[in-house]
């Protein structure tokens, strides 16, 4: 078990192992996402109230779900960075922050597109929208801080502190804006309850969430690989790897 733990911290080991399951992640992710989105957009029944416009849910919910989920993963990795100083953890944080930023933006954008026909406005100062906007700011802050510090190690640790402070604040922000003002419907999926929508709607939604998860896994791997190559460029295995690719 401890050997596995040590291996997990080794960039070289990760580089080898991730290359092996990356194709599966990509293939599975594309398949599931396609299935979910095509089913959702073309075959799922119309909503009796919102008509066809509700179909953007099949893109909106996965991106919003991932955007929050990535921040929580980053926070877990930040704990690992601060406690065990594991190299891979801060490679992960650095690699996925821009992905989280883009997904948060997409969630806000698709939400705005959905809001126009449903609520009659692109933007409204509602709890969910505002807290997602703040999440976007937090992602932006993490990237800005990371770019501002030149030394790689202190950048990683400073970012880890910031991510953790943010994660303490996320529930506070969430509930403060929720009490302040809300219009958004409650969460679509809850672990403890049966979904309130029919199976023809929530199954494709679940598929696209899982698909996006897998694609995120693939993206995280490939971005982490790039980061590892640039950080370890002076080591022998990286040189050998690059030379092998060239011959």
């Amino acid at each position, binding site marked *: 078990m401890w050997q596995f733990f040590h291996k997990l911290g080794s960039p070289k080991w990760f580089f080898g192992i991730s290359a092996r399951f990356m194709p599966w992640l990509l293939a599975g992710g594309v398949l599931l996402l396609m299935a979910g989105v095509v089913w959702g957009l073309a075959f799922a029944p119309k909503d009796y109230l919102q008509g066809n416009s509700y179909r953007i849910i099949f893109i909106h919910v996965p991106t919003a779900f991932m955007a929050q989920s990535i921040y929580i993963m980053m926070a877990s990795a930040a704990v690992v960075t*601060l406690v065990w100083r594991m190299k891979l953890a801060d490679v992960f944080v650095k690699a996925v922050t821009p992905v989280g930023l883009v997904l948060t933006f997409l969630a806000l954008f698709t939400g705005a597109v959905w809001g126009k026909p449903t609520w009659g406005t692109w933007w409204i100062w509602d709890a969910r929208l505002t807290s997602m906007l*703040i999440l976007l*700011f*937090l992602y*932006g*802050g993490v990237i*800005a*801080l990371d770019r*501002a*510090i030149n*030394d790689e190690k*202190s950048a990683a*640790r*400073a970012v880890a*502190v*910031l991510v*953790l*402070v*943010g994660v*303490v*604040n996320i529930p*506070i*922000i969430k509930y*403060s*804006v929720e009490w*302040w003002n809300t219009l958004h419907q409650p969460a679509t999926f809850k672990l403890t309850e049966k979904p309130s929508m029919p199976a023809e709607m929530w199954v494709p939604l679940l598929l696209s969430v899982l698909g996006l998860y897998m694609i995120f896994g693939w993206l995280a791997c490939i971005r982490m690989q790039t980061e590892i190559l640039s950080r370890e460029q002076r080591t022998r295995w990286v040189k050998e790897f690059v030379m092998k690719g060239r011959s």
Partner: protein
Amino acid sequence: MNTEARPEARLASGSVGALAAMKAVFARDMKVAFRQRQDLLNPLLFFIMVVTLFPLGVSPEVSFLREAGAGILWVAALLSVLLSLDHLFRHDFDDGTLEQLVLQPQPLFLLILAKTLAHWMLTGLPLVLLTPVLGVMVHLDGNSIAVLCLTLLIGTPVLSLIGAIGAALTLGLRSAGVLLSLLIIPLYIPVLIFGTGTVAAAAEGAAVGAYVALMGAFLMLALTLAPFAAAAALKISLSNG
């Protein structure tokens, strides 16, 4: 050397308790600040000027100002605390005092707590004391002004404490000022929401006890957690240079 007269000197020997060390740091920060009085005045002037911009820029109507006044004062206070945060560690960082503080045998988070408390006494508290005057200028009624002062009294220490984390993280970086605002403003939002929410509730004649209790909870949370985060951030920033 007469160690009785120089608490700083005794501090370094490690023979003083944590509380005495906090007192010494607090007293030193106050003394240094009062030697440069203009620096104390600047955030206050900024506060007044930002508040002045709203009647000039948006509308001097009494009805608008009465509605938006509490929010304007809160935003102005928030910005002026943000502006003063740069001073929290900067001078001590430049002249090396900060490194000595980190090297003290007393826990760093307690010393940071003392520094933050001094920072609040020098910026947050004067803002609260100025608020009644500005409140009258934006036509708030007496009850609203009293509640506004109360929320600022509870809220500004939270701003200073959260700000200490940001100031520690951005210490010694280029363009630290803008970066500090980027990192800290998202974290200030809950305080702002509840601060203005309390005043709005008071203006409608509702009971404000629950709101004030929640702000008190924020203060307790910030008081217990923020110094630890700031201490960790400070150590990282110092090892960076």
